[in-house]
């Protein structure tokens, strides 16, 4: 870029950057937090704390996945409980029936979730918008009803995870805790890298205007399918962690639409379309649940009302408020132009 300034030709140097000062701070803060959480079981976390944190980590994964679908893929699903349930049943089946041990069982559960999501996408993608939302819900109901027909999976009454039997409770709880901590780090990082990639730029274009994105060469259906399968694998991961944390899988709870409702609340409260939003949302949701669940059904009435108000009047969510309309980015996904010092023409070779 060159411009004339007081008669002398001046070249403005421009650099393209992704990272910001806040993102360096963010990386540092997250690294310290993760390190502290990792040594927690040796130092300051009780067994109860660890089990609660597994729940929080699960919420972060679930929020991140729903945000990937809706915030980047433009797909509102009310059927993600299907993949949570498959993940929960998957870890029990792989760990107990195939005998691979609980840690190896987690990726197996994820692969099963992803494979079923891939197959199901050919049906679900025939619908769009609100009908897609209900269609995914129907598919989740079908998967639940089919699961309850399978006697090997405990039919209507569910199954217990027995692979940890014999392990001392503190060892088991700490193992699940570290699995969950590693999972949440991997899930958020993979989502972040996916969004930052060339594919991710396509997703964003797709969400904002599918027709324009298609004209520019984005493979619309293929991109949506990548997001759909990735989000299902993440939900399967969360389901496997829930099963490992509670040792019990019941069809009515792991396939409950309430889980997807929780994902929606987390994303709407935290802020849709950012990596940070669902993390903030999950922490807020987790805290609200701890303090307000005594209110019974009123709790969900309040949560639903808050969600509607946020959607209508604060669509950027809490993270949008905290970050000052996106000026602070811990996980920058876009590109920024940084103007360097102007250089007088001729003073620079080439």
């Amino acid at each position: 870029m060159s411009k004339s300034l007081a008669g002398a030709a001046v070249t403005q140097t421009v650099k393209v950057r992704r990272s910001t000062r806040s993102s360096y701070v963010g990386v540092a803060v997250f690294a310290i937090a993760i390190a502290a959480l990792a040594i927690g079981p040796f130092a300051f976390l009780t067994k109860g704390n660890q089990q609660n944190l597994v729940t929080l980590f699960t919420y972060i994964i679930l929020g991140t996945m729903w945000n990937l679908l809706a915030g980047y893929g433009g797909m509102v699903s009310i059927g993600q409980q299907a993949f949570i349930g498959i993940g929960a049943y998957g870890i029990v089946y792989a760990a107990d029936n195939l005998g691979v041990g609980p840690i190896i069982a987690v990726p197996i559960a994820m692969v099963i979730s992803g494979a079923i999501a891939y197959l199901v996408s050919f049906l679900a993608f025939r619908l769009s918008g609100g009908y897609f939302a209900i269609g995914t819900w129907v598919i989740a109901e079908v998967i639940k009803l089919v699961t309850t027909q399978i006697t090997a999976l405990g039919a209507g009454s569910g199954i217990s995870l027995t692979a940890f039997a014999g392990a001392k409770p503190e060892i088991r709880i700490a193992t699940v805790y570290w699995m969950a901590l590693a999972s949440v780090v991997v899930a958020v990082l993979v989502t972040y890298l996916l969004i930052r990639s060339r594919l991710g730029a396509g997703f964003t274009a797709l969400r904002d205007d599918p027709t324009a994105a298609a004209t520019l060469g984005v493979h619309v259906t293929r991109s949506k399918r990548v997001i759909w399968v990735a989000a299902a694998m993440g939900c399967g991961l969360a389901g496997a962690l829930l099963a490992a944390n509670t040792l019990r899988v019941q069809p009515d709870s792991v396939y409950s639409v309430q889980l997807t409702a929780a994902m929606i609340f987390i994303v709407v409260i935290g802020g849709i379309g950012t990596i940070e939003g669902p993390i903030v949302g999950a922490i807020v949701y987790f805290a609200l649940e701890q303090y307000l669940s005594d209110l019974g059904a009123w709790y969900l009435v309040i949560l639903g009302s808050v969600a509607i108000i946020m959607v209508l009047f604060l669509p950027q969510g809490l993270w949008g408020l905290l970050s000052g309309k996106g000026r602070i980015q811990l996980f920058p996904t876009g590109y920024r132009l940084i103007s360097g010092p102007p250089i007088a023409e001729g003073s620079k070779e080439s």
Partner: protein
Amino acid sequence: MEWANAIVQGVLLGGLYALLAAGLSLMFGVMRLVNLAHGALAIVAAYAGLVLVQKTGMPPFASIVIVVPLMAILGWVLQRTLLNTALNRQALAPILVTFGLAVIIQNLLLELFTADNQSIDVGSLASSSIQITPDIAIGVFPLITFIVGVLVIGLLQQYLARTATGRAMRATSDDREAAELMGIDNKYVYSLATAISLGLVGIAGVFLGIRTQFNPTFGDATLIFAFEAVIIGGLGSLWGTLAGGMILGIAQTVGAQAFPSSGVLLGHVVFLLVLAFRPTGLFPKVVNG
């Protein structure tokens, strides 16, 4: 012949599903809004009927005369406040807002009426039936539901085809901007569509409350069945929606006849088969009105 009986029961059940589906379809047609609170609102109507019958002792069918206008007013107010605001926001807002609304309604009903199953008592009418052949008996109440369903859909079809406001609704459905340029007030048309939709939900909700035991969580299944009837029938066609409701009803009753605990599952399977092989539905709109 128990199979023939199951088919007849399914057809009659289809009338109820069509009533539920017609409202969902109308709102989507006019403003491209999928109301995820549709099922929860049907349960509101069922409870409204229940309360009226229990508190005033009025006959259940008379309660419809009060429930329908109340639901229509609720629809009008919802559209003027929440839904119009949501339609003006980002693309995902209407889905998220109506989903939030469904959660709120369901949990308010839980607080007010507990999770116990209830139903609206119609006395001997619930069990009376007409014997057609030695094996086929048609329940009087399901038959009334079916006839009401067909009549209401017929009236709605005539309304959309022949009246000025009906034409305005179809015009808005086809091209919102052009309709606005022709002097049609979109907000008025939207409010009217939602009022009619919830009026239909009012009728359907009271019938549902008489037909089966219900509780606050029943809205989920109600929404899903209405949606399946719409998709099986094909978007944009009211008679298609009636046919879709009947096909879903038959799939459920025949399915339950074959596998007693899997009637609902077989209904879903038929829906998925239609989605797989005829994604535009079995009776898609050919000519509007």
